[in-house]
């Protein structure tokens, strides 16, 4: 970190004797002045609350102490106890990652697209893996009910950390309590390990059971419409090079850096979470998947891996400001990259998910594809990545289908009511609603293995099932 010049310090001191200390954690004088004002406001609020309880505090001593802690790099959000996430003010505790603006931007965008959809299901299920403060499901809930009353939202946040879960519950209760959140839908938090393999005995402790197992134990649905995750995604080297000191010293490493891979999988450590998360997305039959990533390189690795699963009709990349006009992305290898700033999320959709995102629904390409890789793992291989197919928002095979091929329809969907809680075959099950997917007839791409199952449960570690596709 560059040293601060004496003249800058002197200038800051002339304005307020407390300011110079804030210059080092803040980027500039302006930011330092803002932070000082926020700290003052916080002290004022605390003092007032104490007064209401018949207690008094020394405001100046309190302020001095806060400034000192801030000067040592402690995040402002831990000092004042909250961070804004979209419209919501989320409580923050040391030991749980502070929510980031970029995450809020992407979640808000997604929720606003989905709430505009005309064909949304009457019950919409949103699963958030690695939920931390619970900010993502809370914001999704807030955004959805700000515009819709006719949808029953069922949102679930999953995290491995006990403390994060406590905080998420606390945030839920607080926001429900002060009526910031509409008294609608259901919001829950659950402990599970996203990295645990459901077919391997838990490594011990309730924190290490796999997501599918935890869902089953909690009698929660195994089918979810939307899967969102902001998992730890920083590689150990980027952790030392790229993160700021305040992040390293004060925020939990568990939330930032994935554990080293157990087997010799060849997957970069920063990427560890994505193959299992894509596997879960596949398992829960998510129609939309939103995954936060570190940068364009990681975004491309994740996007390719998602594409290689051959369950999604489209994959695109959102930058930090996805609503701004697209900045050119020559290195995007055929993926549509929206907006401006660093690449921040990978978005995948299939079936009705396309319409929920405001895209024209395309045919299901599940069965009509070549599988160049037995699993998505190869896409995470370190080293030069093979870019196989260049299309815009849709995989190449979709573009190979002609109109006649698009004509045959069948229903794919999830059960409703109590059915939703029992595992069932996706294809043609009775009582499905609204999920109308068109599938091409048997004329297929030459290389394609026929009758690829829709009931794909493959995580990178497991074999794909080869169940025949049900046709009407």
């Amino acid at each position, binding site marked *: 970190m560059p040293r601060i010049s004496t003249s800058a310090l002197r200038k800051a001191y002339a304005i307020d004797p407390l300011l110079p200390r804030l210059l080092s954690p803040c980027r500039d004088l302006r930011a330092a002045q803002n932070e*000082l*004002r926020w700290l003052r406001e916080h002290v004022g609020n605390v003092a007032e609350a104490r007064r209401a309880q018949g207690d008094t505090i020394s405001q100046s001593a309190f302020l001095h102490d806060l400034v000192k802690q801030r000067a040592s790099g402690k995040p402002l959000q831990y000092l004042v106890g909250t961070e804004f996430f979209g419209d919501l003010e989320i409580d923050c505790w040391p030991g749980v990652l502070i929510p*980031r603006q970029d995450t809020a931007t992407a979640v808000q965008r997604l929720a606003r697209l989905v709430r505009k959809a005309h064909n949304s299901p009457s019950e919409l299920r949103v699963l958030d893996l690695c939920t931390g403060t619970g900010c993502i499901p809370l914001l999704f809930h807030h955004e959805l009910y700000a515009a819709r009353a006719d949808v029953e939202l069922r949102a679930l946040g999953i995290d491995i950390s006990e403390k994060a879960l406590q905080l998420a519950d606390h945030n839920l209760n607080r926001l429900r309590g002060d009526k910031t959140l509409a008294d609608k839908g259901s919001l829950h938090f659950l402990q599970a390990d996203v990295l645990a393999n459901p077919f391997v005995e838990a490594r011990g402790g309730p924190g290490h059971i796999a997501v599918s197992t935890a869902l089953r134990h909690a009698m929660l649905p195994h089918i979810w419409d939307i899967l969102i995750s902001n998992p730890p995604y920083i590689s150990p080297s980027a952790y030392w090079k790229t993160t700021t000191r305040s992040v390293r010293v004060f925020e939990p490493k568990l939330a930032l850096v994935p554990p080293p891979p157990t087997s010799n999988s060849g997957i970069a450590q920063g990427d560890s979470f994505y193959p299992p998360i894509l596997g879960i997305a596949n398992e829960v039959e998510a129609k939309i998947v939103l995954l936060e990533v570190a940068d364009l390189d990681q975004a491309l690795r994740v996007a390719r891996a998602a594409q290689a699963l051959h369950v999604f009709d489209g994959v695109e990349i959102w930058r930090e400001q996805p609503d701004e006009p697209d900045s050119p992305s020559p290195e995007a290898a055929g993926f549509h990259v929206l907006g401006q700033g*660093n690449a921040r999320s990978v978005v995948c959709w299939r079936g009705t998910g396309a319409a929920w995102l405001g895209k024209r629904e395309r045919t299901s390409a599940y069965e009509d594809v070549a599988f160049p890789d037995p699993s998505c793992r190869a896409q995470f291989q370190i080293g030069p990545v093979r870019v196989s197919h260049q299309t815009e928002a849709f995989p190449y095979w979709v573009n190979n289908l002609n109109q006649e091929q698009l004509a045959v329809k069948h229903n794919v969907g999830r059960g409703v009511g109590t059915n939703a809680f029992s595992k069932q075959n996706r294809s043609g099950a009775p009582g499905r609603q609204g999920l109308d997917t068109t599938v091409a007839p048997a004329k297929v791409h030459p290389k394609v293995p026929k009758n690829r199952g829709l009931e794909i449960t493959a995580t990178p570690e497991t074999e794909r099932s080869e169940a025949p596709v049900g046709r009407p």
Partner: protein
Amino acid sequence: MLKTSWICRSCLTRLARPAFRGKVRLQSSGRREACSLQRVAHNAAAAAPATVPPALLTRARGIALEHKQLTEKLADGFDTRAAKRVGECGPIVNALGEWEKAHESAAELMSLIQDPSSDAELRELATDDLGATREQLQTASQSLITSLVPVHPFAHLPCLLEIRPGAGGSEAAIFAGDLLRMYQGFCNRNGFRATLLKYENTNGTQEAGVPLSEAILEVDQENAYGVFRCEAGVHRVQRVPATEKSGRTHTSAASVHVLPSLQENSAASEDFDNPESDYYINVKEVRLEVMRAGGAGGQHVNKTESAVRLTHIPTNIVVSMQDSRSQIKNKEKAWALLRARIAQVRREKREEEMVAMRRSVVGVAKMGRGDKIRTYNYGQQRVTDHRSGTTVLNLDDVVAGGQALEDIMESVRTWLMEQDVEALVAEESETKK
């Protein structure tokens, strides 16, 4: 003919139409004081006889006719446009009716008095009556005139006061802070809810005496725009700055902009989507920039900056906001401000066209930016408004936002009304030609 009587018009206008509904107390004692002060300043040309200028009478009669026709039309079937217009004309038609009644009885009395054949006793009685009847006629004349003056289309809205230092270095910045506190005091005293939307001085606090670089005060009160509209312009201060050792008097200035404020949820918010409205902004023409931490972003940093900057590309109007920790709140505030500024620019352009049209007939001083409107002279403890010509000798009460400020503002509103009437007469005689 009637003998024309000359009166203080401001008193009459006030009787005829309070400048605004709302909580500002209309203290009669205060007003009288203001009137006596004005007497000094009023020149004969500014004050007009209490008769209705023939041009306005013609206009009123034209409107009455239209009103009658529309009412007949409405009897046949409902038409929202016509109904609205009938509603608008109603007060004018009533005022005209009152005026005609008063005018008729005054004329009758006069002819009685002047008729040499009339009975002497009767003539005496008529003479006794004449005073009261004339008074009625004056009142009716004023009501008629004021009913014809269009109410400012934004008068009913809450408003934003933007205060910035002008020429005069840090003394100007200190004075800008004084003005801010003056308006805060005024709001406080009148029970208006005022929120500081933006406050920037060089040290990020709100201490008095610290030079102010920009403040935006939102007055969340119905009719606030009507109340504060007259405050827009350059305010000049003459005093010995606290920092001046030699004791010389300096002249510096601060500017005040007054914008009607339309909040997202206010009644007029449908205007946002109406391309005809001043508040309409094509979202595509606005560039949004949010402060990014630079570098990798995402999980790598836990930044606290939430600054937002909006640029309206066609007009190159830029607003930025960073006061709140919430980016959303900064964004909302920035949008509200951008809307208000753009609407103001559009309105000014329209008004300029109007003024240009009227100027050919009567010189109407344009009010608003640029013009020096008021002087605060600390040495003489006086405040003079250059538009109404009013001077008060109670500077302390003015800068505290007290009754004396209210008196001055009232005098300007009256002046504005006079301008409007003159413009109206000019317009009417223009169209007749």
